[in-house]
């Protein structure tokens, strides 16, 4: 039988470190899925997830049991991913330099039959990652949460700690920048 999170948390706070392991096992797939949205290399993903759980362990005393532990943990995860993006800003100019064969094929398929969506979702994922790399970290964060994970503005505000109006402004600007980058790609390809 599963021990409730609240009981495990109380044991950890009382000094029983091993009580954290069931929490780790239970939530690590969710945290891995989140981290993979922001980091491409597997070693980076593992570093992010490890940092999330270490932070969660160290700040567990600040967890208020009025909300589920998972919500609190996801806030820690999203903020850790944001810190990762800020630390690992890649060269925005070179992000769109050369498209791979798969990405080219994906764009061609959409250009020739706009009504259909090509099967190769991996190519679309790489293309989106490329476009994202042209954006500042805050914009990458907001596009991922809003467009890919389909979270509401309020949820994003809770996860990131930003105000609702700031999320709206960032979302508007980030979408405009994404479209501009996409326009640049398609102009270079088709003109």
């Amino acid at each position, binding site marked *: 039988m599963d021990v409730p999170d609240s009981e495990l948390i109380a044991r950890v706070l009382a*000094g029983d*470190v*091993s009580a*954290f*392991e069931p929490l*780790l*096992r239970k939530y*690590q*797939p*969710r945290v*891995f*899925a989140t981290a*993979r*949205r922001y980091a491409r290399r*597997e070693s980076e993903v*593992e570093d992010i*997830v*490890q940092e999330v*759980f*270490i932070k969660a*362990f*160290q700040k567990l*005393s*600040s967890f208020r049991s009025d909300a589920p532990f998972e919500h609190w943990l996801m806030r820690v995860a999203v903020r850790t991913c944001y810190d990762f993006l800020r630390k690992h800003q890649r060269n925005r100019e070179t992000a769109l330099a050369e498209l791979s064969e798969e990405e080219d094929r*994906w*764009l061609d398929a*959409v*250009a020739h039959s*706009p009504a259909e*969506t*090509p099967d190769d*979702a*991996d190519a*679309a*994922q790489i*293309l*989106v990652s490329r*476009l994202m790399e042209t954006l500042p970290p805050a914009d990458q964060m907001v596009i991922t949460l809003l*467009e*890919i994970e*389909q979270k509401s503005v309020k949820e994003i505000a809770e996860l990131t700690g930003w105000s609702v109006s700031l999320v709206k402004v960032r979302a508007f600007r980030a979408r405009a920048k*994404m*479209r501009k980058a*996409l*326009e640049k790609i*398609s102009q270079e390809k*088709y003109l």
Partner: protein
Amino acid sequence: MNIEQLYQKLVEAVRSRPADDRVPYAFEQRVMARLRELPQVDLAAMWGRNLWRAAVPFACVALAIAVWTRSQAPVSPAPSPAGAQVAGLDDVLLAPLVTLETEVASW
């Protein structure tokens, strides 16, 4: 090509991919080993907790000292406003003499 349509297609394609939640083998053991290595005392949290705990006793002590000091203060009759004015005038008039006396004494 319609950029808006292309953008929507891209986003839809990425959404259609299931979230990759695979966990590397024995990852939790690696994290647990790191957690066991960490110092168990969170100094900042402990300091914050202790400060909050100490707030009430310190407030009580401050209140007790205030009450005690007030009760120990000598009860002197309030000087009449006229008397206070005279004393103030004396101080002002005699101030140069007092200064002179101290200077002479130091010679």
